[in-house]
């Protein structure tokens, strides 16, 4: 995996456009989902994707092959998302409400395999609760929760991406998890 990326970076540095397109293909979905969860807005998430790859392209010569490529690109994507989140903070909750939310994008309409409508409803309720709870978190918790549960990065990887000690990441995951547990409990009662 890492070998492939290092090779692609080398080729791209030599001006091979195909190699760079390959890098884009490998990571565009992951960066998009990350940004989409962070920003709850498709348009903005796509902007982040474009900006991320533009930065990757411009700074390709500064990429250190000793570092995992995924860590490097996640760092760029995460920082861009956090920047946007901070900038719009005053209108944040309003944005989240009118932005294109999951329901509007239709995932709740995807039929399950052979679930009853009640189960289906409960699952989609839970999902909504989780997404809303994560959306409402302050950026520093939100980022960690998204990297952990959406991107499924390890605590060590998150610590590399955010350039923070792993103990800090752990504390944030623990608090985030407790927060979610309470939200889910209140949903059940």
């Amino acid at each position, binding site marked *: 995996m890492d070998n492939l990326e290092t090779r692609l970076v080398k080729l791209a540095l030599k*001006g*091979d*456009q*195909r190699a*760079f*397109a390959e890098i*884009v*293909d490998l990571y*565009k*979905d992951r960066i*998009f*989902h990350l940004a*989409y*969860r962070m920003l709850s807005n*498709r348009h903005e*998430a*796509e902007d982040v*994707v*474009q900006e991320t*790859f*533009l930065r990757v*392209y*411009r700074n390709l010569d500064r990429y250190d092959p000793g570092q995992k490529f995924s860590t490097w690109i996640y760092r760029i994507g995460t920082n861009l998302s956090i920047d946007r989140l901070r900038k719009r903070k005053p209108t944040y909750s309003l944005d989240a409400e009118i932005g294109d939310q*999951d329901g509007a*994008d*239709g*995932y709740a309409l*995807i039929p399950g395999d052979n679930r009853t409508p009640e189960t289906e409803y409960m699952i989609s309720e*839970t*999902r909504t609760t*989780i*997404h809303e709870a994560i959306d409402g978190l302050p950026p520093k918790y939100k980022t960690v*929760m*998204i990297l*952990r*549960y*959406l991107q*499924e990065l390890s*605590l060590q990887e998150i610590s590399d991406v955010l350039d923070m000690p792993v103990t800090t990441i*752990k504390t944030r*995951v*623990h608090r985030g*998890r407790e927060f*979610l*547990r309470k939200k*889910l*409990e209140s949903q059940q009662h």
Partner: protein
Amino acid sequence: MECKQAVSLMHDYLDGDLLSEQANELKSHLEACPDCRAAFRRLEETEMMLFAANRKSESVAVSEDMTDRIMSFLPQPKKHSPAWSWVRRHPALTAAAAFILIMLGTSIGFWNADTQLVVRGSDLNRVQVEGNTVIVPEGTIVSGDLTVERGELKIYGDVEGNVTVIDGSAYQASTAHVAGQVKDINQAFDWVWYKLSNIVSEVAYR
């Protein structure tokens, strides 16, 4: 062990880094404390649902043309060989120099100077470049001439001038329309001839 410490161990357990000694302590606390047992079960559920909810919701996908979009707005790397830019800056001098080069039999070296794809034209922001392939997409009108060296040219749209492919190949789809001539140059000799005549006409127009 206090309940507070037990909860902290539960989180470590979920993070996958609980030492076996701590695991035993936690286990004996859970056996003795129903509150913590319930809390543990809920935390495990939460952890599971967090992964599940995020995994299943990703039916929201990035636009299909994202890769193309990104590739099209990247700053184009400089691909003209130094020799060719010199030729462009000094057409008259080059014409004379090129004749001498041919006389000296070094034209092959000159021809080999470019090893990568080169695209020339006056309306290049309308064409797409993917690796070694230059594409004129369907519905796109490229004004003026289009020249591709060392690459594949695929035309689906319109080119309002001449199309020249040097040491490469040209493909025209049924939707393609080229107003001028389509020239395919693959020989070293043709190449020199082409550059010379190009220079001569450039000189003539100045």
